[in-house]
């Protein structure tokens, strides 16, 4: 078999194939539920109900989506320039560390929140800068280095939480001291459990879209991603574009850590992120690397997680079904998108 380009993909092809990918994912979900001895339709219903079935559930989904929008944007920006940043997890924690450092009394006043956010972004940017400089200077593949940095960062956080950042009032638990009240992101509406981090995430999505589509840097990032050699030939400073992309990407991922600590948790623990950095890759791919589409993609992914958690308690299907569904949806979706532009022919 070989692939043959489709000159002008029809609207049916453009809409039908992603829809088919979604249906195939649902079919896999039903199969998994059946394997677990549960009624497939009821299981799917419970997932949907658990994700958006009540005000509480919907708010939970929005809260869960917030860090995923940030990490999804971080990955989308980087992948667009073909910078394989798999280290959003490490950058997230770098942001969280700085948030705790500044928010537990080091600085105060009305500007403490923007200051924390900016410092967090700087920390995340620096963390990604290392692998990117290794890439541009020594040609070291950034996939492996960013992945390995995740493990180093987690151990560093573990050290901080048992040493310098340990909460003296924490009864021996490895957690940081709580943030000062003025360093907490307030709720958007009083009484509703949704903080300003979510609004910040939406603003970030629009900002990234503007940078990508309306600025010279965005143009250069896309040119480097399409063909680095051609971009260099055309006079685009590829290495400097990659460094700028890294600063943006690392900063966005760090905002996830800032928002989780300042908006939701109020302190730092080792389980602050259940893999938000890695899940950001799925979010970005489902959004086809489009910054605005990252928002619905993050909501979908968050919904699957929140829904599966709640379904698991009711129907007894292991909650890991969520990760399986996201992995299959990712694989089906990249295949579907390829098949929009190519058809399979024999020979």
């Amino acid at each position, binding site marked *: 078999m070989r*692939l043959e380009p489709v000159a002008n993909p029809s609207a049916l092809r453009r809409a039908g194939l992603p829809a088919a990918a979604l249906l195939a994912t649902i079919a896999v979900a039903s199969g998994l539920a059946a394997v677990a001895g549960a009624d497939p339709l009821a299981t799917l219903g419970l997932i949907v109900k658990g994700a958006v079935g009540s005000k509480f559930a919907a708010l939970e989904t929005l809260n869960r989506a917030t860090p995923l929008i940030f990490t999804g944007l971080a990955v989308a920006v980087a992948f667009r320039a073909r910078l394989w940043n798999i280290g959003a997890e490490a950058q997230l924690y770098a942001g969280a560390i700085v948030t705790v450092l500044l928010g537990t009394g080091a600085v105060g006043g009305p500007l403490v929140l923007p200051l924390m956010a900016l410092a967090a972004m700087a920390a995340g940017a620096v963390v990604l800068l290392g692998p990117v400089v290794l890439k541009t200077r020594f040609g070291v593949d950034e996939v492996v280095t960013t992945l*390995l940095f995740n493990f180093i960062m987690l151990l560093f956080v573990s050290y901080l939480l048992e040493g310098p950042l340990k909460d003296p009032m924490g009864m021996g638990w490895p957690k940081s001291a709580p943030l000062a009240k003025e360093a907490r992101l307030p709720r958007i509406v009083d009484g509703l459990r949704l903080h300003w981090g979510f609004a910040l995430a939406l603003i970030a999505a629009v900002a990234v879209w503007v940078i990508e589509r309306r600025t010279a840097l965005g143009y250069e990032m896309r040119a480097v991603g399409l063909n680095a050699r051609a971009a260099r030939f055309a006079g685009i400073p590829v290495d400097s574009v990659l460094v700028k992309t890294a600063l943006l990407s690392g900063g966005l991922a760090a905002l996830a850590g800032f928002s989780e600590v300042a908006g939701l948790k109020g302190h730092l623990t080792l389980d602050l992120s259940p893999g938000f950095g890695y899940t950001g890759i799925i979010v970005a791919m489902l959004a086809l690397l489009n910054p605005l589409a990252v928002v619905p993609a993050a909501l979908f992914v968050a919904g699957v997680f929140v829904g599966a958690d709640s379904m698991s308690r009711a129907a007894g299907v*292991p909650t890991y079904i969520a990760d*399986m569904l996201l*992995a299959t949806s990712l694989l089906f979706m*990249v295949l579907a998108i*390829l098949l929009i532009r190519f058809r399979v022919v024999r020979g």
Partner: protein
Amino acid sequence: MMSLFDILLSATFWAAAVRIASPLIFATMGELICERAGVLNLGIEGIMVIGAFSGWITVWAGAGLWEGVAVAMLSGMLFGLLHAVLVVPFGLSQHVVGLGITLLATSTSYFAYRLILPEVTSPPRIEPFAVWEVPLLSEIPLLGPALFAQTPLTYAAFAVAALTALVLWRTPLGLAVRAAGENPSAVDAQGLSVTGLRIGAVMVGSGLMAVGGAFLTLSAFSSFFFEMVNGRGWICIALVVFGAWRPGKAVLGALLFAAFDALQVRLQQTPVGQVVPYQLFLMAPYALSIAALVLMSRRAEVPAALMQPFNRGER
């Protein structure tokens, strides 16, 4: 520093280093075979998890240890086939699909674990591979316990490495596989199927990665824990680069790496370990891998067609 010498001169230290290297050797050979054929396999981390799980659960269900190894290998080959089909004939991004495979294989293991053992708080133990001492050779001081008093899977790891080198460099099939990763058009012109060679290489390589995972449950820890693979797959990708895509050098890299890993565990028990936080020791393997990548980056002879899809229509 007396204690460092004590460690380096103890037989248990070298035995531990060889033991720690064994799963890495399996998985590194697996990744090396994939990359020699031109396919990056980032599914390695998840494939090691599914190997660790499927081998262990098979033995737990009553089968023999070698049957566990076989099941692990088959499950690895299955995920390898999925990866290969998506990235070889369809030419999808090897980064994205590989990470997807890692997530799929990992979550499948955890899902199945919870399905089969819904209530347990700590995983049941199995009777792992016993140490098999080679007569006479195992009595050589220092070297004997390190190399000849290991479990059968460790011997198998070294045998697999030798076999990989032999097949890749001394057989027509190996030449074809390497050519698929260097110059696929030439392979095609010879009337051989690039697609077939690459899919086959990824399946065999993934099978080996899964056996590397199974080593953890069937030979090292005798139980399955979440996150037990803990980045070993990513380290193996670094080891392939460090070994310049050569089996012999990669085995040396794995042994060197494992020696450092065994050393950091022991240094934690010394006076140094009382002062330095233990997390710093645990970071060493990952930092070492990054350092190795930087050191070797200038000299690395990357397979020319690594990560380049081959589509006959485009010639």
